[in-house]
């Protein structure tokens, strides 16, 4: 029984989060859809509790509970990340002027549900739990994308998302089944380390015998991650869904959901190719996978950037930009080395600040200007200087220029890439970041390089403060990146 209790203790944050989700659901029912803001505040408070619980776990001894849940700092990092994103998204929902005031209690429930999915997804080496977490996240996301039931765009987005997501999940599942059949196990570290012909037999005999089935299974599994991260060729849903979904949901998809994909991929690859006692032939195969990822990275960032160039909608542009950023992150992943992984994690953290910020500003513009077209922002910088300057900081960071956190993240990625023989990829990424300057600064151009706009600014002091805070952090962590990087390094001790 002790083991059971210890296990429950270990997954306490998940339990609290689940409870919180239920509480919001029940509260919404009790209040009959009135006063939804109150539920938002409950969510925030609950997230704060979860966040504190997680924070206390940083650096704790890793353990495996219930045979499949890995409670370790790596997971904690992404859980904290998720909690923070969900909290910010909650604030977005609360500040979204276009959102109804009441009857949106389930909004928070769905967000929390998605968060629970992420929590499990990022903390397991077992393919079953991985799949369950991923599906939970997906189901919540589908609903969120279609949250505005009366809106055609929102409905269409949800439909596309569910079809594409269902397909991807199916493919991944099929891949998992193949992998299971080939190796006789669902546990990744066992696959990697098992040698000989005893049951389960792991990957080694398969790789020795015939790599084709393994390759097919691998690609299918990776497709699932690629879909979550919006990596080419599984990115097609991204622009459409991002554009159609309500902006806070888009933010959630772009930040938390993508981070979950990254985390799961890192864990998958880490457990498969980088665990202690990994068999040489498996490690060798890892290099092939790394090269595949590197190529995908190059294609993804290039496609994302080139497509973003001619977008007139800020939202859609940010969607393509998020595809491009997935490509950058893959540089770190493709190295299949700890420092590459930590670079990817750092970049994820950087991405958190700048993208939350950018989407937040987008939300603000949507309320203030009533449009997300870049053209309509002309001269608005002079009307809302603080938010617009903050936006410039986010744009600079997204482009990857100092003194912002985005630069440091890119620096780490480039460094890892060059250090592990991916100089060509770094070169491609460098050119890409020049290209990205064009479209990012088309926003800055619209904001400031035109005559002041006529439309008055919108006063949302708290929201503005949140954004400014994010902006300042974007710059502060660019100048003093040490703290985050240290944190990342501590969390990466898998």
């Amino acid at each position, binding site marked *: 029984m002790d083991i059971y209790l210890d296990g429950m203790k270990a997954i306490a944050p998940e339990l609290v989060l689940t409870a919180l989700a239920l509480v919001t659901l029940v509260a919404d029912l009790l209040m009959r859809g009135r006063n939804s803001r109150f539920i938002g505040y409950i969510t925030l408070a609950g997230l704060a509790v979860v966040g504190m619980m997680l924070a206390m776990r940083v650096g704790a001894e890793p353990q495996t509970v219930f045979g499949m849940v890995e409670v370790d700092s790596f997971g904690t990092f992404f859980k904290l990340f998720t909690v923070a994103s969900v909290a910010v998204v909650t604030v977005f929902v609360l500040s979204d002027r276009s959102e109804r005031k009441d009857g949106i209690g389930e909004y928070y429930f769905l967000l929390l549900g998605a968060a629970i999915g992420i929590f499990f997804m990022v903390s397991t080496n077992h393919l079953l739990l991985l799949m369950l977490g991923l599906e939970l996240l997906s189901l919540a996301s589908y609903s969120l994308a279609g949250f505005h039931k009366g809106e055609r765009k929102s409905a269409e987005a949800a439909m596309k998302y569910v079809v594409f997501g269902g397909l991807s999940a199916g493919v991944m599942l099929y891949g998992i089944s193949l992998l299971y059949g080939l190796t006789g196990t669902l546990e990744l570290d066992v696959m990697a380390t098992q040698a000989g012909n005893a049951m389960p037999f792991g990957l080694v005999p398969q790789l020795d015998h015939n790599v084709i089935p393994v390759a097919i299974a691998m690609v*299918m599994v990776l497709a699932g991650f690629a879909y979550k991260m919006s990596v080419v*060729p599984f990115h097609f849903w991204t622009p459409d869904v991002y554009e159609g979904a309500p902006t806070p949901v888009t933010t959630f998809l772009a930040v938390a959901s993508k981070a979950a994909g990254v985390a799961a991929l890192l864990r998958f690859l880490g457990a498969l190719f980088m665990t202690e006692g990994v068999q040489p032939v498996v490690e060798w195969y890892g290099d092939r996978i790394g090269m595949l990822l590197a190529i995908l990275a190059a294609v993804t960032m290039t496609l994302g950037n080139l497509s973003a160039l001619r977008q007139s909608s800020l939202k859609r542009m940010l969607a393509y930009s998020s595809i491009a950023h997935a490509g950058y992150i893959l540089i770190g992943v493709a190295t299949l080395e700890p420092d590459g992984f930590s670079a990817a994690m750092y970049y994820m953290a950087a991405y958190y600040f700048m993208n939350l910020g950018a989407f937040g500003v987008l939300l603000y513009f949507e309320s203030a200007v009533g449009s997300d077209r870049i053209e309509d922002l002309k001269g608005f910088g002079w009307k809302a200087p603080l938010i617009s300057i903050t936006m410039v900081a986010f744009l600079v960071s997204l482009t990857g220029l100092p003194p912002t956190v985005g630069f440091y993240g890119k620096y780490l990625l480039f460094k890892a890439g060059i250090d592990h023989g991916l100089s060509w990829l770094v070169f491609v990424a460098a050119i890409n970041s020049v290209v990205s300057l064009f479209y990012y600064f*088309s926003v800055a151009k619209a904001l400031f390089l035109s005559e002041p706009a006529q439309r008055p600014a919108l006063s949302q002091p708290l929201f503005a403060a949140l954004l400014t805070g994010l902006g300042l952090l974007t710059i502060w962590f660019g100048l003093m990146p040490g703290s985050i990087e240290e944190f990342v390094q501590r969390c990466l001790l898998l």
Partner: protein
Amino acid sequence: MEFLHFDPATDFKLLLAVPLIPLTGYLIQIFFGRKLPRKGDWLLTTGMFVTMMITLLLFAKALYHAYTGHGDDGHATPFWHHSSEAGMTWSWLFQDSEAPNSPLNLTVGILYDGLGASMLAVVGVVSFFVHLFSMGYMKGDHRYHIFFANISLFTVAMLGLVLSDNILFLFVFWEVMGLMSYLLIGHFSHDPKSHRITQAAAACKKAFLTTRIGDCCLFIGFMMFYLHYQTFSFDGLWQATTQDVMVNGWQSWQTTAGLFLFGGTVGKSAQFPLHIWLPDAMEGPTPVSAMIHAATMVAAGVFLLGRLYPVLSPDVLTVITGVGALTAIFAATIGMTVFDIKGVLAYSTISQLGFMVAGIGTGGLGLIAGLFHMVTHAFFKACLFLSAGSVIHGCHHEQDMRKMGGLRKKMPVTFMCMLVCTLAISGIPLFSGFYSKDKIVQSTIMTNELGGTWASSFAGIALPLAASITAFYMFRLIFMTFFGQPRDKHVNDHAHESPLPMTIALTCLAILGMFAGQFWLSNLDIMGSHPTWFETLLGVSHDYTNLSGLYPGVELQNTYVGLDAAKVEAVSHHAHSSAVVLSLSVASLGIILAMLMYLFKRLDPAKFTETFAPIYRTVLNKYYIDEFANKTVIRGSMVLSAVLKWFDGFIVDGIVLSVGRINKALGFFAAWFDKTFIDGLVNLVGAVSNGLGAALRLLQTGRIQQYVSFAVGGGLLTAAWLILS
């Protein structure tokens, strides 16, 4: 006579003061000139007077030394001083970290020798008189104070040039003179009342640019010498070159470098083919023409040759002779056809400069003669120009000789001065020009007899011919202007003698133009068979094989090498008598011809021009050299610049654009690029969809099932890669 001894300690301070006095004047004038009484002209003129007196005093010291100092062989010891004797040197580039003698540094000082002393005196004297003359001539000019400031600064530069002990500083002052020449030629280009405002604006630019081509050559020349000898100082260059040549003989690079050096002279001293700026430079006020474009600046090129003579290889000297002789004859022919009074003088100046250059090219005696001609020419040509200025002033800015005539009585002083100087330039004994020009002719004869080159043979014919033509056109000028009947009543009625400052200046310069050649009064050496004062001052020997007065301690490797001194002396004597006869006859021929045509009207010039119409037209149009330069160099540069401008805008800039064009095939990039970058120039959005990359756009169709297909297809590709690799 103690005060005539050269004392380095004090005299180098005086020498330093020579350029500093007008410089101070300039600074005062440029900032406060407008507010000073009489706009400050008195200040600068007084300053120049002091400067002139100093230069004359120092010149007297040099002369005193030359006539009293004794050397081993009874010749005067060279008068040659460097300011390091007085501890006056200046580490120019570095003062702090470098040892003074480091090859990286440049130590500069003042060089004062016979050549420098005479040139300094010439510059001082001419400058002062030009200042004086200008007080009358420029009266009422609306930029009067600026004019004075500019000629003052010009004088500073010229004085500095003469005093430089190294080629780099010479170059510095050389260029500053170019600037001042530019500003002074363009003086009237600011004057709304001037009717030649546009021409003046073009002329000043042309002058600067043309000479700058020469300047660049000069720069390359001494840079090449610096490369081999690591020195800029004249002394160092002489020594290094002669020692090098004694061991290795003349090398081809020395010839190349020497030609480049000569390029400087070609530009500044208006030798063919860079002479084209000088006639145009007459757009400047006449005092400027007198000072800069006759007496001083254009002589700087000749002075430069004098300074650098030991480093010029025989081949270079041959070219110098050839170019000089060509310039002399060719400018003289043009001079016959010009009707503008200043224009005649301008071509005459070019021609005379050709004489000097050709003389220097023949070496030895010719070098001395050429430099001497530079001195004498300075006086009489300055006087001629000022006289012309006086005429123009008297005729209310009429320059066309065809409208003058009979001014003899209206302007007697001007007439007398001009006549004296015309006799001087024509080479009539008793007048200074004779003694210098005669020696140039003598030198060509001598060189030819001692085994000449194609150039000296050419010079032997061209120079006497040019001398004859000179006499002709100068007297043509005198007769057309001062004799006969007034051709334009209006001009003549209003003609008047110039005011006192101008006539004083004229008279003094005319006197110098008469007597600056030979002290014939003292020893009755009318034909100039004795050494002139200039030769004495430079301390050259009779046979001209030893020029150690000019270049102490240097064994020249390009002058009468391997010839017996006695033989040279003998040839020299013989050549002297031939030269005198030749000079006198050609001068007389020219004068008689001019008299027949323009004084007695026995011969009608129109008939000649008709008979030789094609030749006349060619000459009248200055051999079409300006047109040629326009068509080739200037047009060429403009075309090139237009081509490059196009290249820059469309090709270089277009590299980025062409990235876009390649991407036209690749999709969005080009569309975006063009939209943003060639704002509205080409709407490529439509074209994009035709390209390959339309695929990229077409992928995002909005149809979920197509997305699925693409994704599956992409996944298959991925799997295929993983399997195949």
